[in-house]
């Protein structure tokens, strides 16, 4: 156990907007504002675990149609087809563009699945007030904050390609419903991560003392 003290033990709260440390009077008044920026002071993000679970589960549900349904319609020089994300990756791979295939695979499969696993792990361990690998779990949380939004890549590629290829009879590319589910999944998992309060990882320590 470290000798360092947590804000809760010292009876102070750090304002999450301006950083000013104030005396914790929430116990007496139930409501307090930062004297510097008038933000409502909170010890933890409200209802953090419940909201993070809700957004995470919704995101996981959306990920199924995002992969099963086509994200793009391609009609070029006589041949036309509906493509899912994975078919897009495979066609890049077959064309020999291994690098691009890998980038899209990472953005659309590796990143979302890693996010599901890490968020699920963080939520379960925080609910159980686990003291296991707290430092590593804190790092994992910062990792998904850092890489999570890169999944929007697929949405923006479909947007650019669909906007460009508009040649009526010669060629036409259109977005399909799958990309809506995919984009919504990215936003939902980002909301899940934003609602999870990383301080909950460390609250396990206080419970065990």
């Amino acid at each position, binding site marked *: 156990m470290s000798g360092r003290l947590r804000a809760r033990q010292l009876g102070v709260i*750090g304002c999450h907007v301006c950083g*000013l440390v104030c005396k914790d009077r929430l116990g007496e008044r139930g409501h307090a504002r930062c004297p510097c920026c008038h933000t409502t002071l909170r010890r933890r993000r409200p209802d953090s675990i419940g909201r993070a679970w809700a957004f995470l589960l919704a995101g996981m549900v959306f990920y199924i149609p995002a992969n099963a349904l086509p994200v793009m319609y391609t009609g070029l020089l006589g041949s036309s087809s509906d493509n899912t994300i994975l078919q897009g990756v495979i066609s890049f791979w077959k064309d020999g563009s291994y690098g691009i295939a890998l980038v899209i695979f990472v953005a659309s499969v590796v990143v979302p699945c890693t996010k599901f696993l890490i968020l699920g792990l963080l939520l379960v361990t925080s609910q159980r007030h686990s003291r296991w690998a707290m430092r590593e779990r804190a790092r994992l949380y910062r990792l998904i*904050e850092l890489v999570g939004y890169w999944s929007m890549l697929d949405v923006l590629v*479909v947007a650019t*390609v669909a*906007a460009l290829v508009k040649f009526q009879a010669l060629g036409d590319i259109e977005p399909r419903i*799958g990309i809506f589910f995919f*984009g919504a999944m990215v936003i939902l998992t980002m909301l899940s991560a934003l609602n999870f309060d*990383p*301080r909950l990882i460390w609250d396990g320590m206080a419970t065990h003392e």
Partner: protein
Amino acid sequence: MKTFPHLIVCEHCDTVYRRVSLESGDAARCVDCAATLYRANRMNVDGWLALTVTAAIALVMANVCPVIRISLHGQHNEVTLWQSVAALGHGAAAPIAVPAALSVIVVPGLQILLLGWVLAFARAGHRAPGFAMAMKVLATLRPWSMVEVAMLGILISIIKLSNVVQVTPGDGVWATAGLMVLITLIASRDIHWLWGITDNHPLRGRQGV
């Protein structure tokens, strides 16, 4: 309410520290969770404001000049950043056009506007009207700014299309690349110290300096 301007609370694990002055370019890290507590400021307000104005110009250019031009059997087509996002608005996936436009154009635009507003007043040592609100909004917007993802999306689209049509990058792609670097420089940094330099609270001195 009693405040403790000499203290800082780690946002990621709630550990309380005494503020120390840092050498330029250094960062204070939390001993427990290794998150960054605060950084010494490397850029002065003038430099920061200049980069913000440059970013505004780059954002306008990326939306006025085409980012990609393609030609197929004598027909030409070109899109700007805005047009490529707007293309998502047609068809079944239409709702996803809103977050795409927000993350690539609206959010970076708002970040530039708010920072410009706050910094212009900070140059004179004043707090801009609505300073607290602007700082809150800037903190909320930060995770939703995705210019770098758009840039990678444009590059992938160029490679994807170069198999079937003739592709030339437009002037807008350079503007987008510039915007990506500038947004990272101006908006991804620790903005907390702006509270310190524009402070009129007698208890608080310059933060982290």
